[in-house]
């Protein structure tokens, strides 16, 4: 097997360190700034994993994944702010709502395949972006979005000194997402997903209802994205149209490809790296030493998309499989050398 025998104990150790570190204020992880950055990075990592279920495991290239994430953000924010239900019920309703929406949109768009499917999901996703931007019935707050009313959520999520609770919530959400996706992809349904990706006609010939399994993958992925939308609402403190942009889905695609599809940890790593790099790049370019770089180089570098875009093109052209793919290739080479 390609898995290194110490990888699971080491992963467990890493999780324990990540969970305990925020309690020591002298560590870098004790600082609220890094905690916030990492919390957001964890959410993106988890979101990238839900996208990997669609794109990597089932072979569905969707460009509308932001729709379900944004549904989670907005539905929970509206329900909490208007005091319709308590925060935990709002989280559950938002998650279910995302799943139902995914089922409806999926049922329509899965009538198409391949590139057309990509375009159709893109159109549905953009419709969602337009709707939240227009502020129908004064619900979504238009271009400015809506700020979460801090009075209606537990106080341990509020304030700079409580950032570590947001961090733990995000870490927990990542672990839950990972476990669900692990369970799904290792189940018999997960085998059908992989078979659909590799040879859909053959699955059809065996007598399996392919549409139903594609829809199942679509709905599971959308539901998890909705749940992560609630966590993002807690971490970001507001619901804004930027969560519904098609740019979100494109970022997810980049994360999965950079980290490597179908390995689960690759997508998570890609998401954390991408989110962390985007935030840190912006901080870096604010510094004094950066001002000495000529404007015509410094300007573009200040946009994180430049470097990430170049890395992305490089990986697609020369290293398909991304970071995790490269790791497994190295591992395979080491193992074959040992045995020969």
């Amino acid at each position: 097997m390609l898995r290194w025998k110490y990888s699971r104990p080491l992963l467990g150790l890493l999780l324990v360190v990540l969970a305990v570190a925020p309690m020591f204020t002298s560590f870098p992880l004790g600082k609220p700034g890094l905690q916030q950055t990492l919390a957001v990075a964890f959410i993106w990592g988890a979101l990238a994993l839900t996208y990997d279920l669609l794109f990597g495991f089932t072979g569905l290239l969707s460009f509308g994944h932001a729709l379900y994430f944004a549904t989670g953000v907005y539905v929970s924010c509206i329900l909490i702010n208007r005091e319709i239900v308590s925060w935990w019920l709002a989280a559950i309703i938002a998650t279910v709502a995302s799943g139902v929406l995914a089922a409806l949109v999926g049922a329509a768009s899965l009538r198409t395949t391949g590139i057309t499917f990509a375009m159709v999901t893109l159109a549905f996703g953009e419709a969602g972006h337009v709707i939240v931007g227009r502020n129908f019935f004064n619900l979504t707050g238009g271009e400015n979005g809506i700020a979460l009313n801090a009075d209606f959520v537990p106080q341990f999520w509020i304030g700079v000194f409580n950032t570590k609770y947001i961090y733990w919530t995000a870490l927990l959400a990542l672990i839950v997402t990972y476990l669900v996706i692990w369970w799904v992809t290792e189940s018999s349904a997960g085998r059908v997903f992989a078979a659909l990706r590799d040879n859909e006609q053959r699955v059809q010939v065996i007598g399996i209802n392919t549409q139903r399994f594609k829809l199942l993958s679509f709905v599971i992925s959308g539901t998890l994205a909705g749940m992560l939308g609630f966590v993002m609402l807690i971490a970001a403190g507001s619901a804004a149209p930027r969560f519904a942009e098609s740019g979100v889905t494109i970022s997810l695609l980049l994360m999965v490809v950079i980290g490597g599809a179908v390995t689960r940890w690759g997508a998570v790593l890609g998401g954390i790296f991408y989110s962390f790099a985007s935030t840190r790049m912006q901080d870096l370019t604010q510094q004094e030493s950066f001002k000495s770089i000529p404007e015509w180089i410094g300007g573009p570098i200040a946009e994180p998309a430049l470097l990430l875009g170049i890395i992305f093109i490089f990986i697609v052209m020369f290293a398909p499989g991304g970071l995790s793919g490269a790791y497994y290739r190295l591992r395979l080479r080491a193992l074959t050398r040992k045995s020969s």
Partner: protein
Amino acid sequence: MDTFILIGITGIGLGALYFLVASGLSLIYGLMGVLNFAHGSFLSVGAFAGYWIARQLGPETSMVDFVIAMIVGGLAAGLFALLMEQLLITRLYDRHIDQALVTVGVALVVGALLGGWFGNDLIMFPTPMWFLTAVNVGGAMIPADRIIYIATAVLLLFGNWVLLKYTRIGLIIRAGVENRNMVNALGINVRRAFSTVFFLGGFAAGVGGVLVSVYSNGVSPLIAGSYLIYGFIVVVIGGMGSVPGSFLAAMLIGVIRQFANYYVTGLGDFVVVILLAGVLLIRPQGLLGKVRA
């Protein structure tokens, strides 16, 4: 009646802009199966090149200067498209998903470069004075720039038709859209047709970029995104690989969107998506698309 004509012609003008984006997308997809997410960058490259040349030509932009700006914008975008095709797309021959992914990367890089150099805020695009006047059409006062959009789109449609119908390379492109493997098997170099299509698609998008900048009152790397999405919708509704289909769908969407927006603000985009869903359910291959064997 005046408002009716005004909205109708404005809609057709908007449709003309969509067509300039969609014609290239449709041909590139039809011939090569490449979903080109970088088409929005062609638009931006054309817009900035046109802006640059219009600035060089003097403080007062005459009609001739503007036409030069359109042509330079088109050429710049066409050459950029050709470069991308040669450097990246050809190396990923027949790996369709990877080709689409690479174009996503190109779109990101171009957006970052233009955003870094020129900023993401709107920069005023110099236009001829004539654009600010209105033309009387059947009692309605139509802003003059709309007429330029429509004329350009019709000209490009005509040019496209002549090229596809009466030249050898056009014949190869049409045959390639129909059945690429057969054309290849007959010993004809389809690669040349690929490059031509990329250049032409880039050219149309570049010209479109200059016009879009006039329509949006300025150049910005952020404008291209929404036109790209509309371009995709037009291509799906019109039928992949069919340029007349794109023209029809673009006009249809432009007009419907304007009318819907006139009656209820913000309804237009929504109606377009409903229309897309409807077309997919009733006629998945699009209005003028052929069913693939």
